């Protein structure tokens, strides 16, 4: 293997990690907004699954039945994924904000419901193959499609915008104040319930988008349990990103790399560390993203202790207007 081959391979792996990290990015930033308003939604995995299934179903209907072009069908699928993620998160919002139920348990219920629904309704779409994607002719990005490139750029633009919105605009300030001290925000005329509903729905839409992107753009196709725990990793990344969208961007890309690595290492062209002839090592490589999540939480917790930065103060507490102490 020559040096230039290795460079190409590195570029492929690095860009691949951006591609597989971008869905994670959307889910993580959506959850950051939701948690900043004081509502934890552990149902990301379920919303992503529903988004992935509905997005793929809509795409396949539009593409094969209505004979849309592939691009517009994908766009329509992504929007459908967002809409269905939104609907599922609405359920969570009603249960936790209006009915004041426990956010942890409700989030789990969202996950169960999403996993079950996507499995039942997506049954007919398993195994449908997507058309050959348009490849980019640039030599270094040999294995990349136009959609993937567009999606990565979208994600890279989205994160700074989200940061700007949260930290430099009035609605962003309102959002953070609702998560820190809802009673004070309420007394200043900010509608706590409406704000929380809004951002929980936004988080749901982003998770749905992330799921739809997985089944349409980054790794086209639908299988049952498509997201394989990525939604839960997004929940962990929110903590590690200390509720900051820009940090969310970096950690998402890093986890994208960890997710790709086991696949890339199967490439027999790699010297020394290839797992092509060593499936046992491959199983350990599969554990990597999950182990890294725990490891990163340990690192993050030490930093959080040192810097005293952390969760929105009202995270997890239902707001009851007129009650003391919340």
């Amino acid at each position, binding site marked *: 293997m020559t040096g230039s081959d290795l460079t190409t391979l590195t570029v492929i792996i690095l860009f691949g990690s951006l591609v597989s990290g971008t869905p994670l990015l959307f889910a993580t930033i959506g959850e950051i907004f939701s948690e900043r308003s004081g509502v934890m939604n*552990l149902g990301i995995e*379920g919303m992503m699954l529903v988004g992935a299934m509905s997005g793929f179903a809509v795409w396949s209907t539009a593409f094969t039945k209505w004979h849309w072009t592939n691009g517009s069908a994908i766009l329509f699928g992504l929007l459908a994924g967002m809409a269905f993620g939104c609907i599922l998160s609405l*359920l969570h919002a*009603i*249960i936790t904000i209006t*009915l*004041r*139920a*426990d956010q*942890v*348990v*409700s989030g*789990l*219920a*969202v*996950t*169960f*419901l*999403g*996993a*079950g*629904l*996507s*499995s*039942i*309704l997506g*049954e*007919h779409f398993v195994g449908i193959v997507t058309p050959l994607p348009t490849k980019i002719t640039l030599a270094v990005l040999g294995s990349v499609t136009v959609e993937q490139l567009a999606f990565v750029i979208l994600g890279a633009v989205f994160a700074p915008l989200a940061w700007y919105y949260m930290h430099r605009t009035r609605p962003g300030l309102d959002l953070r104040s609702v998560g820190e001290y809802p009673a004070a925000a309420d007394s200043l005329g900010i509608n706590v319930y409406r704000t929380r509903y809004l951002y929980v729905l936004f988080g749901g839409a982003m998770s749905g988008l992330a799921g739809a992107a997985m089944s349409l753009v980054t790794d086209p196709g639908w299988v*049952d349990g498509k997201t394989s*725990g990525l939604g*839960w*990793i997004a*929940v*962990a990344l929110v*903590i590690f990103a200390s509720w900051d969208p820009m940090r969310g961007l970096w950690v998402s890309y890093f986890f994208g790399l960890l997710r790709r690595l086991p696949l890339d290492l199967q490439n027999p062209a790699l010297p020394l560390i290839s797992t092509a002839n060593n*499936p*046992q090592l*491959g*199983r*350990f490589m*599969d*554990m990597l993203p*999950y*182990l890294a*999540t*725990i490891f990163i*939480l*340990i690192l993050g*917790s*030490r930093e959080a*202790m040192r810097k005293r930065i952390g969760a929105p103060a009202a995270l997890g507490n239902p707001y009851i207007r*007129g009650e003391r102490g919340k």
Partner: protein
Amino acid sequence: MKWNGTNYRLRIEARLDNPRWIGVVSSIFGILFALIVGGFVLKAAGASDPIGTYRLIFKEGFGTFADWQAGFQAWMTNTSCPKGMLCFGPLSDTLVKASPVLLTTLACIIAFRMKLWNIGADGQMFMGAWAATGVAVFLLPKTTDRVVMMTAMALAGISAGLIYGVIPGFLKARLNINEIITTLMLNYIAYKWIEFFVVVGPWSIGDFESTGRFPAPATWPRLTELAKQYPITAGLTVHPGIFLGVIAAILLAWILFRSRWGYEIRVIGDNPRAARYAGISLEKNIILVMALSGALAGLAGMNEVAALRELNGRFQRGYGFTGVIVAWLARLNPLAAILVSILFGGLLVGTKLIQPQGISSMLQGVILFIVIGTELLFHYRIELEKVETVPVPIPNNGELPTESESQAEASHDR
């Protein structure tokens, strides 16, 4: 809200008592409502006859009345089950499924009572199964006495689950790391761990992705082994594992409601601040509870491999998650969990053959939603009250009272 010319207002106020009936009613309501919603989903997915599907689930899970009648008759006359009837077959399958569900449910209950969200019962169960298999197949000789063998397996399963539960417990207690995430990640790691050993790794026999059949002393005896004396038991795979769960449930109920430690756990769960002022150590209890929780889940793993009689790559995932639902449906009561587990065992058996595979998961999600959605009824009394439209006296300066003033009045009367 206006209705029939009168103004109504939804009034939500804190409830001081905690009536028991609400829990039972909302659990039953949850199941019924979930079945209705599930029927619509099935219809949407293209099933022509949702009610027929449910009937099939019930028949597969529990059998029909005619089956039981035939079973009892055969039992009394000491003959075998008549041809074409299921007799106690479905009930037996349900009890087999219910025993790991019950143990993982108990693991969830003890943790949830302290508001410690151990979602990792699945992973702890896998590790328990792994350790028990190691003892049964590779450590002890094939001819070990059954009691010794089973005890050693149980101890191995319990310790493996315990260690796997203490890891997130320790991280939570010392570094305040969210236990939901760590237990979940440990689930995935445990799945891969089993795959490593059984599918590709050192424990698999050839390409079978399995450790092969356990030696006889390492397996639960099945009821069908009595078929010579009692022909009715022919084919029944039910094993004593369910008693393990029932005993554990009774012990756990005693711990929770009769012991000092259980009292501490409940105080921490209800009000951690009060617990700290009372001198109850949070750190110690987090680690201890996670240890017990993991141990129970580990025991579930040992129970399951001893029933399956081998550890293979298809070792069932998801018992830990079913445990979460059952725990909630049983209102975190270990004794109620026995009944609900058997019900869910039936659901799992019944839905195994139904084609959309996700139906059991979907039903569980809806049930959980309903149960926690009606939780509000526990703590608050919701009333629809008439708003009397008293003509507002106009103050001298002619200004109407502002909105905040009338709200201050409204909150005054609670």
